[in-house]
């Protein structure tokens, strides 16, 4: 009975925390703007087949009668050299970018965080040395170069691009969580859990991890933007998504051949990339301020 009431108290306190964070978040117009932008883009991306004006333009489709049309009321963002509607392809491109960001984060966050927790908790042991030195080696190369290198030895494609970005990006989570975990290691609540005989997994994933959640969330919302940016860079040089897939990076690359006369082919996809990254940046900054987390 008592246990129940204390649990309820803990739950209501959690709600109170969330409510306060949301209040702080909603006080900043820029954060709200970021949230709105991301929500709109997500909606358009998820329902791309239904909301886009010419869904058939998303992949292999040729209509030379309508090729290279400038923006008009029929084609809001114009058409490319194959007569495909740019706006439709942007919607589908956003879909790809968001999927890429989400997949990469889903791949690396669990791995990076788990490694950081283990290394931080066993600070000073051989586990710490091995994990953190490997992390250092991965960080010793600029992420884009590492991603390009991994991509180039594999066959080009969206899946391999995601794999390449993941290889380049996981160490940052490990390093961040390591810093927090190793400083929490000596705290009383961890010692109390150890004394009462809690299991290692309980200490690592319940006691320590719950204190890393705010910085991890902050970093994730900022990283969505960066991952999408790197993905666009990979596609730009032809190592990412392959034609006829609608992908923002490769659309900019293809369109840049027809500059400056047919500017709309590359300019609108470029704007789309900027808008997505801006949205996640504003959102991430807002989350950071609201959760009071340090810059990750």
């Amino acid at each position: 009975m008592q246990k129940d009431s204390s649990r309820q108290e803990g739950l209501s306190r959690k709600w109170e925390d969330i409510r306060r964070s949301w209040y702080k978040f909603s006080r900043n117009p820029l954060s709200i703007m970021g949230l709105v932008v991301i929500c709109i883009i997500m909606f358009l991306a998820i329902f791309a087949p239904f909301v886009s004006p010419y869904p058939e333009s998303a992949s292999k489709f040729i209509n030379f009668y309508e090729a290279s049309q400038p923006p008009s009321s029929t084609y809001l963002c114009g058409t490319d050299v194959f007569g495909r509607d740019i706006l439709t392809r942007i919607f589908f491109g956003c879909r790809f970018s968001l999927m890429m960001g989400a997949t990469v984060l889903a791949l690396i966050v669990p791995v990076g965080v788990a490694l950081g927790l283990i290394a931080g908790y066993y600070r000073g042991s051989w586990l710490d040395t091995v994990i953190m030195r490997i992390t250092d080696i991965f960080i010793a190369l600029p992420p884009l170069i590492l991603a390009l290198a991994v991509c180039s030895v594999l066959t080009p494609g969206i899946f391999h691009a995601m794999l390449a970005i993941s290889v380049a990006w996981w160490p940052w989570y490990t390093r961040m969580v390591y810093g927090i975990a190793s400083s929490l290691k000596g705290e009383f609540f961890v010692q109390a859990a150890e004394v009462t005989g809690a299991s290692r997994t309980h200490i690592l994933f319940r006691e320590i991890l719950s204190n890393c959640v705010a910085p991890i969330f902050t970093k994730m919302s900022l990283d969505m933007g960066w991952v999408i940016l790197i993905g666009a860079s990979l596609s730009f040089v032809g190592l990412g998504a392959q034609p006829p897939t609608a992908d923002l990076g490769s659309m900019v690359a293809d369109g840049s051949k027809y500059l400056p006369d047919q500017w709309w082919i590359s300019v609108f996809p470029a704007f789309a990339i900027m808008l997505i990254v801006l949205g996640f940046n504003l959102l991430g900054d807002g989350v950071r301020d609201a959760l009071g987390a340090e810059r990750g």
Partner: protein
Amino acid sequence: MRTIKFIAKRLAYSVFVLIGLSILIFIIARVMPGHPARMALGARAPEWAVERLREEMHLNEPLYAQYYYWIKDALHGDFGMSLVTRRSVAHDIKEFFPASLELALYAGIFMGIVGITLGAISGWYANTWVDNLVRMLSYIGIVTPSFVFAIFFVLLFGYVLEIFPTIGKLTPGVVPPPLITRITTLDALITGHFTAFFDALKHLLLPAISLAMGPLSQEARITRASLVDNVQKDYVASERSCGIPEQTIMFKYLLKPSLIPTVSIYGLDFASLLGNAFLIELIFNWPGLSRYGMNAMLQKDLNAMTAVILVFGLVFIIVNIIVDLAVGYLDPRIRLGAERTQ
């Protein structure tokens, strides 16, 4: 003495990281499906020739033995032949690296100076229209991919205004300065070829700025944030109460501690600069190592690729050492902390 110990420790650590990096790159290069020997000789080469090359390249031996042969040659400066240029990779690196270094140096200096200046102005005039303008511009700078900047600059300055060249290092008619350091602007200055100097500078401007825009905005934001943070500290209030002029407070007391986060993130920003150079050099047809590396990657030229990545890893490690020293200079806590933990 302390500083020397600090540097020695840092250097020893860098050597370790570099060895690790070479293993990582080697593994990545060997992951590739297909036969390097077959690729080197072409599809029509007879089977016995391929087999002989496999022997020569030690491809039949276990992975650690392959690594041993590879790193032994690499330490002697021999990275094998490039499959694309059909020349020794070491020779290619010597030829293309200075151009990349030159570009990265100009972009890096531009990024530091402009980023810190903008950040300082923005932080000093916090919450005024100047601050808001700088913050808005830096947001745009951060979210725009460098290749978009590059394309935009090529269009605006190269085609519309026609004031800057958009391709290569020098205008074809201009006599190139003699090769001393191989860094064109420096060679031109040393030998007094001023036409070549200004021409090279003009060619550098657009690629360097498109490279610097993103990281520069990051620097400005960090500087602003840390300046705004420090202005609220007690020591600034006490300096003000003593009647010390605002300029003195800013330049003598406030700027130095406020630059610590900016300088520590400089290494990270330089990383994105080096990475983006792979795209920018391709767009501007800049005859540098990044473009060479990018072409090697696109054509699966493994020898050239591994060597180029290793070179960039080395550059990045050196930049990080410099950054660490600079942070140590700005922040005595780090220098002394490093001493205390020993």
